[in-house]
């Protein structure tokens, strides 16, 4: 993990090299899936390898040592790795999101943290589940909180967690009466990882609860990434934090669904119908289902990449309204929906054999269902995005587009 990337050499890395590294690593993953799942976390050698190849620095601003990879490249890297193993793809994307949120800290502070922490990966979440009590001297807060779903908690040297500012035992409110919120960064050493991640899907991501109890939180280690963009010119940072987060997440369903197609095609070519003895793959119902899922996935993928490119293009020279920005979130939700339907449908076709853990189709199903349980795809997130799309949103929404 301390693999000598203290000096950022990232900016010299081309997109092609990054993608090539991702493909190389991905090729090793199918054979390791069961072991990764059993270990319950990303193995240390893979953490190292991602770090060595700058794959945790994809979404960071170049000014902080990011690779400057094109946003589309980030999607494709996450897709490739997720195609190799879903949990590994998830660990990768979450690590990149964690590091991207360093961009909302003061640049000098962020640079300091990165300089002090060679293999920086930030784990944790933005949901305001912590309580920050201001110190009398104004230098910061005392922070207490528990954040579930801390993917990467077992390898990240720094954590983050959303919080509410408390005042006299109650949330401090802003001028609109809403609680004052922020995101805290703190060293993993100050926190406890509570072993809660016993799950069916994405088991290999070590997404335990992160817990802190009354730690010191300097002001400098807090940020407010909910509404304002981070002060960097990289294409990715033209996006709101929410769209940025979703973009980094979007390669996951693409890769897992593609893997499911690969697996199903292979398995269904081998298996025969008991009655007729013909391969499943020659059965009309199977074929029609295949055509439907493959085309829906292709369409969703193309739409995502096209929408991302268009929005970034627009934002390069003008502001964009909520309705336009919501297109990207909608396209990413769509990718998750299509992927989820695909893995469930193909799993169903593959019969009893797919019940076994050794069958990758079954893992694809569990992993993608688990990923799509993320709050970003809940009814209320969808409603928020729809509101923006329909032109009914007129003010910034908490974690809106």
């Amino acid at each position, binding site marked *: 993990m301390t693999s000598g990337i203290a000096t950022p050499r990232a900016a010299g890395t081309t997109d092609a090299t990054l993608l090539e590294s991702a493909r190389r690593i991905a090729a090793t993953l199918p054979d390791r899936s069961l072991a990764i799942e059993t270990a319950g976390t990303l193995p240390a050698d893979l953490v190292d390898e991602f770090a060595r190849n700058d794959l945790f620095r994809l979404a960071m601003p170049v000014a902080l040592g990011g690779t400057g990879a094109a946003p589309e490249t980030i999607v494709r890297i996450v897709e490739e790795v997720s195609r190799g193993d879903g949990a590994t793809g998830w660990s990768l994307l979450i690590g990149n999101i964690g590091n991207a949120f360093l961009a909302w800290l003061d640049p000098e502070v962020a640079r300091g943290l990165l300089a002090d922490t060679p293999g920086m990966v930030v784990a944790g979440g933005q949901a305001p589940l912590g309580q920050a009590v201001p110190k009398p001297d104004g230098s910061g807060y005392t922070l207490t909180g528990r954040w579930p779903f801390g993917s990467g908690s077992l390898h990240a040297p720094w954590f983050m967690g959303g919080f509410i500012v408390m005042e006299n035992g109650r949330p401090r409110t802003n001028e609109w009466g809403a609680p004052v919120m922020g995101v805290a960064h703190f060293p993993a050493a100050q926190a406890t990882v509570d072993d809660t991640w016993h799950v069916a899907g994405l088991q290999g991501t070590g997404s335990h609860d992160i817990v802190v109890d009354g730690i010191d939180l300097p002001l400098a280690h807090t940020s407010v990434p909910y509404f304002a963009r981070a002060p960097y010119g990289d294409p990715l940072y033209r996006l709101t934090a929410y769209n940025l987060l979703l973009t980094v997440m979007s390669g996951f369903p693409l890769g897992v669904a593609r893997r499911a197609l690969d697996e199903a095609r292979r398995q269904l070519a081998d298996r025969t119908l008991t009655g007729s003895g013909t391969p499943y793959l020659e059965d009309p119902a199977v074929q029609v289902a295949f055509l439907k899922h493959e085309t829906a996935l292709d369409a969703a993928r193309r739409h995502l990449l096209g929408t991302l490119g268009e929005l970034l293009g627009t934002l390069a020279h003008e502001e964009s309204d909520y309705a336009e920005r919501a297109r990207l979130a909608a396209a990413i939700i769509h990718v998750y929906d299509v992927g989820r339907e695909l893995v469930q449908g193909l799993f169903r076709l593959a019969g009893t054999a797919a*019940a076994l853990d050794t069958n990758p189709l*079954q893992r694809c199903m569990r992993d993608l269902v688990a990923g799509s349980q993320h709050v970003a795809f809940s*009814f209320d997130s969808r409603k928020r995005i729809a509101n923006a799309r329909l032109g009914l949103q007129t003010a910034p929404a908490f974690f809106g587009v």
Partner: protein
Amino acid sequence: MSVTALEKSPIEEAVRLAATLPGRALEVESGRTLPADLVDELRAAGLFSLMTPASLGGREADPLTIVRVVEELTRGDAATGWTVMIGQGAGYLAWLEPDVAREITEATPRPLITGSMAPLGTAVDAGEERIRLIGRWPYTSGCGLSDHLVAGYRPAAGPPRFALLPGAAVTVHDTWHVAGLRGTGSHDIEVTDLLLPSRLTFDPYGPAREDGPLYRLPYMSYLLVAMAGFPLGAARRIVDEYRQIVLGKRNTERTLLSETPIVQAEIARCEATVGAARAFVHEAVAQVWAQTQDGVASPQARALLTGAVQHAMRATLDVADSAMRACGASQLYDRAPLQRYFRDVQTAAQHIAFGLEAQRRVGSVLLGRDVPDFLI
């Protein structure tokens, strides 16, 4: 084991035991099979003897009772319900010569018999009214618990038959590493060169030796009666969990899910979906049973029964997915019953009884086409 008289009805017993199951689900799952004391209780309550002839000390229950029992147990814990459903193999004692069957139940009263119907064994005649059997059968739920196992095989000549294997003669290969129905211990079983008296083999497609109407149910209907309660119980529990979660959980806007319009409509839809699936299974079972009183149920009625059970499984998958989508990431944990049921029903639906060919056969019969009788 000592056998006490069965005093309570099977449904009462099922309701009583089902109440204990939610608290044991993690234990069943992590043990990868039913715990011994639970097996003992189920056996003592006669719940592994639902289809065992009364003449052999079994329940010889009517189909609606069998459906209700499996439904109740599955509502308590899906792996338990599944194991009990598959564990009705002692019903096949009705196909043995009465004295042979009695030999079995005298040695082991109310035996627990599971098995695998797939004709994956092969046998040769070994002389002296014996066969020599070799075979390996996958997905044999509850195999580690069984006194005997029923297994399909191909004899040297003629159609497939079933053999009743002594539990001790069978090797269990630990293969059941799965996402769902983990607690059913559905491992591979194997026998290599087993010498077996021919009187322990039978033709499950032919007439039984027992003359109760239960044993007049054709091969597939007999199996479907045992399976029918599983999706019903699972679906019921899923919707129960769904309700409980939405009554307590708030969305990011701090609104109770039960107060949001989308969830309200989904709950209404799921309750109706489950209610309709259940009403239809009951209707179809009752119709087959009524026709069986005077002979053998018609292919149409039997196809509707199969169709009803397949429909119930689709309905179960549907509500499980609706529940998971509505209830979010908090349901990812193994401790969340909804999540376990989601895995359990996804796995159960992979059973061949719900496969492409099984669905088409139902349609073929309903369209008046010829389908081999033993497949209906």
